[in-house]
């Protein structure tokens, strides 16, 4: 089954940490998380479209909503991955992805 992962950029810890995985089952979006209700409230809010006054609702159109969520959640603190099958998930089972260390030169 395909899903998307929601990661938090945890800057003090220098990691990206999975806080939720979202997938569609039947006609609704399901959440896997240690805090499913917290992340349901934060993530499954209607997302405004480019048409004024129109939003994509997670209950009305789960696929379109998750597509919009992937596009919107590319920020400094919250990041959504693209769709991927569970067997090819790029996030390790621990849910923790260390940030890559680079040279610190400022030039």
């Amino acid at each position, binding site marked *: 089954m395909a899903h998307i992962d929601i990661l938090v950029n945890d800057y003090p810890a220098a990691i990206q940490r999975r806080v939720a995985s979202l997938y569609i089952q039947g006609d609704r979006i399901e959440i896997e998380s240690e805090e499913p209700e917290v992340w349901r*409230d934060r993530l499954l809010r209607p997302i405004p479209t480019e048409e004024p006054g129109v939003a994509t609702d997670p209950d009305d159109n789960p696929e379109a909503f998750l597509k919009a969520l992937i596009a919107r959640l590319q920020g*400094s603190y919250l990041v959504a991955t693209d769709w991927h099958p569970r067997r090819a998930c790029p996030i390790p089972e621990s849910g923790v992805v260390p940030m890559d260390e680079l040279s610190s030169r400022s030039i």
Partner: protein
Amino acid sequence: MGRRQRMRKRAGVVVLPTATATSGLEAYLQLAEPTTRHRGVHGAHPSYRILFPGGVLALAKPADEGGDGERRVRHEVAAWKVAQGLGWTDLVGTTVLRQMESGVAPSTATTFSVQVVWPAPIDNPDLSQLRDTDIWRAAAFDAVTVSTDRSHNWLGVPPGPPYQLALVDHGDAFATTSSSISSVFFSERQGQPLPDAIRQALELLRESDPQRVLSSLLEQDRLDAMMVRIDHLLSTRILSLPGP
């Protein structure tokens, strides 16, 4: 002598005016040599973790990665400057432009926006967990900057709830058309009379000469449109935007 005159006392303690203090922070972020740099693995618009000497932690966005990066990093700084002009330096993290080595083209310099990281933030808390005054400030800020992507881009700074609101990710702000706005805060307060404190902040912003301050950060048409929006808000005294 000049600096001493700008100092003031609060409860008998000498403190720097906020504008002077944040200017010092800006200079530090622009010039300090990073101690370490890390890059997030996932995300279409990569964020870098920069640790500076003395323990200041910042996030950086590169101009040479992700779409339209050069414009986006300038807009990140412009948003900070608008917050500064409004006197709301607690609403947006101090942000500067600086050169650092590219993460994708070694030995090549590129421009980054560099922003102070908020301490232990709560990601994207519900509006019911934020202060009413902060919701108003965010609504006005998003109206001025025409935020096109305020669906999830905010933090709650502990303790709370209610949390102190911090707005993040302004690369796609400063649209020229009012109809481009997409902000839950603006939608929450749209059409309501502006509180006195909001009007006073908008007056402060207009008096801060934003056209000069933002001239190197925003394209002229975006800057002109922002000035029209500020005038509109102050003349109507309603949270609304000029057409179209």
